[in-house]
């Protein structure tokens, strides 16, 4: 049964936006109760704005009734970002999907928040969106900015915040603010405060991005590591010699889990840049790998793209055993990657769950992927325990949770990062004194 204030707020919103834009039926509300996190939370209502004025009206009304508002893009979050875990009204941003402005020469593009990666990638044939976490391109730009999403190509192009020049945001009061600089960011600005705030400070309604150019030349390698520490040595060499690496991702336990046995880890590494440079770096990289007696071969560029863009490696893990998967995303200092991998392995053994660890040495990005049987209740329970265990072990190693996916319901506590929680809580109180914006995410009240 929907909460009374939420229903009243929804009715007021319906009178402004139109009844077809407010969903109150059980079937519709249930359809907005999930994302890719495996968590369920049913909203009291779902509202579907078509422009910034609609969003402003929705937020202002919800604030007046003290009802939480939860922005939602395509619902591809791994951390329950768009789920109303404390109840409230879900704001479905998908109808705001217009390309507002574009400049073919500079790659600058202004889009509404509900535009999807696959739509954006159709705009400039020579440029591309290097961040595509769901593989299919279904995620919205607003969601990716809110969670500061990453991809294996973040090694070169940065995370989502590095592609954003400006955002239009509706604050919890309903006020619309343009957080944007006329030129490239050159001084302290407010963008850093908003990007990656996971919908807890406001709702992004449009964004101004610069899409990078596709590189002139690319060459990819498939590497077999018998010891994951070697991948860190390779990364150190890459850094010392200034090689242009676009992506470097290692799959620990992949052969064991997917193929039933084999090398400890496989990896894809891509070099990109001017052709002469790529030739030089390739030959140098091969030399380094040969000297370390690490087996490697040149990989098909399509295969490499499938890994970076379509996230084929991760999906292959779930496909191989016809299992469900639970992904926990973290970041550690690169020299601690091996320790993180060991912690994840230990957790998998203790909880009797197959686990593949995917990590990106240039970023120190580590993703534990646990496989479980969705109809085995005990196994589902053990998977949740495994996820929580991995998070606490990573924090004790000095790592952080939520890199690339957002923190969401895992929440950062004072034990993890006292300074952040202190400052962010004060900012939150100032902008959202009623805590209506996506409560229960990122930090605790």
């Amino acid at each position, binding site marked *: 049964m929907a909460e009374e204030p939420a229903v009243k707020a929804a009715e007021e919103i319906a009178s402004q936006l139109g009844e077809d834009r407010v969903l109150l039926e059980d079937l519709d509300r249930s359809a907005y109760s999930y994302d*890719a996190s495996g968590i369920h939370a049913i909203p009291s209502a779902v509202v579907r704005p078509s422009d910034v004025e609609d969003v402003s009206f929705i937020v202002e009304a919800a604030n007046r009734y003290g009802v939480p508002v939860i922005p939602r893009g*395509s619902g591809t979050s791994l951390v329950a970002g768009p789920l109303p875990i404390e109840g409230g009204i879900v704001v479905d941003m998908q109808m705001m999907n217009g390309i507002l402005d574009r400049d073919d020469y500079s790659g600058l593009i202004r889009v509404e928040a509900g535009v999807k990666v696959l739509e954006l990638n159709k705009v400039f044939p020579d440029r591309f969106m290097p961040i595509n976490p769901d593989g*299919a391109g*279904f995620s919205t730009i607003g969601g990716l900015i809110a969670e500061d999403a990453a991809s294996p190509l973040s090694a070169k192009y940065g995370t989502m915040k590095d592609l954003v020049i400006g955002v239009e945001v509706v604050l919890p009061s309903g006020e619309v603010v343009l957080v944007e600089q006329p030129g490239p960011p050159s001084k302290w600005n407010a963008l850093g405060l908003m990007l990656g705030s996971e919908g807890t400070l406001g709702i992004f309604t449009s964004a101004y991005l610069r899409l990078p150019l596709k590189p002139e030349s690319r060459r990819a390698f498939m590497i077999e590591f018998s010891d994951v520490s070697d991948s860190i040595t390779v990364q150190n060499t890459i850094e010392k010699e200034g090689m242009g690496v676009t992506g470097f991702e290692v799959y620990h336990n992949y052969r064991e889990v997917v193929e039933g046995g084999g090398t400890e880890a496989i990896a894809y590494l891509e070099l990109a840049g001017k052709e002469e440079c790529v030739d030089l770096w390739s030959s140098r990289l091969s030399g380094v790998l040969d000297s370390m007696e690490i087996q490697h071969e040149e990989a098909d560029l399509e295969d490499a793209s499938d890994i970076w863009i379509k996230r084929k490696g991760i999906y292959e893990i*779930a*496909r191989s055993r016809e299992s469900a*998967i639970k992904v926990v995303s973290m970041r550690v200092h690169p020299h601690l990657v091996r320790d993180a991998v060991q912690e994840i392995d230990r957790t998998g053994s203790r909880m009797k769950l197959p686990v593949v660890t995917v990590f990106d040495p240039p970023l120190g990005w580590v993703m534990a992927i646990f496989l479980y049987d969705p*109809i085995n209740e005990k196994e589902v329970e053990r998977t949740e325990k495994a996820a929580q265990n991995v998070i606490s072990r990573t924090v004790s190693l000095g790592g952080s949770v939520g890199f690339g996916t957002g923190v969401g319901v895992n929440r950062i506590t004072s034990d993890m990062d006292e300074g952040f929680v202190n400052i962010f809580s004060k900012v939150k109180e100032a902008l959202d004194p009623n805590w209506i914006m996506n409560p229960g995410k990122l930090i605790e009240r």
Partner: protein
Amino acid sequence: MVEFPEQLVKELGRCIGCGACNIPCPMFHVEDLRETEGARARIKLLSMLSYGKIELTEEFLSYTFTCMNCGLCSNFCPVGIDVFRAIVGSRSALIDMGYVPLVTVGMRDVRRKTGSPIGDRITKGVWLPPDFQPEKGADLLFFAGCWVHTVPEVALAANKLLQKISERVVPAGTNEPCCGGLVYVIGEKDSSEESRDELRRFLADLSPQRVVSGCSLCANMFTDLGMKDLASTIEEVLEEGKIRTKSLKGKKNKVFLVPSCRSNGASERILRSIKNANVLEIPEWVCCDCGATLIYQAEPEKFDRWLGNLLDIASNMDADYVIIEEVACYSMIYEALEGRNKVRGMKIISLPSFLLDHIS
């Protein structure tokens, strides 16, 4: 509580919720990207139903049974769930448990009485001589498919087209059984098997060299029947060089193809081989075949929105022709447009009729 078979519960539970299956989902796009209408919601809500997290209501039952039945969702799942098969399997399981929505009861009854789930709206073989009986051992048997009987001109065009590739084309005639494809997608597996058995016996009795199906749902969903869809057949003969395409004359050359949902791409390749034809790029979710019948009959306003959306896209692309591969789809659109074959300056035409003029 609804108890689905264990394997089905597991398959539904494997969904990682990425939403990739919504990308080609026609209902999701036509209903303004509303999550409820997409393939992901169907899988997720069925999974929630199997865990008792939501109740089975009349509304939910009807929802489970009505989509375009295109099956494109299965091609997009990154973790290998056959999304469409899981939806169809859930429908079957619900029917087995006695939860049957009225619309499927209607189709089942009509099939029992007439041999076809749409038997109440067709007169088979009106395009054939009154005393027509198919001869046995034909070189090419033309299995028209149920819907084609509502548009005799398309049946005739397809028959003539096939005569260009074989001297002995024999239509299956008025006793042509339904292949069971439509009742299969609505979860009536027993009824579907009965139909297929009947069709097998029918084909065995006529023992043709080969069978070409006007209904691509039948040919491509039940490959064991040994039928080939019309476009694949034409493409094969084009490749052999026995026939060739003719150039599309005039400046009006922009072609918007509505392929069969089970197309292997043959229809598009044929059109691209026609000189001067400018075949437009279509969105991932544009396709249609006999599987759309349920929504056409149960929720005609949704079908109309789908059609309106399709025509908007074609019109915005300045299409001169909207070519519909599937005869069932063409029949439904023909009826929905009340027999008009020209809309907003675009000619609405079936693939067999178009090819008849552009193949020699």
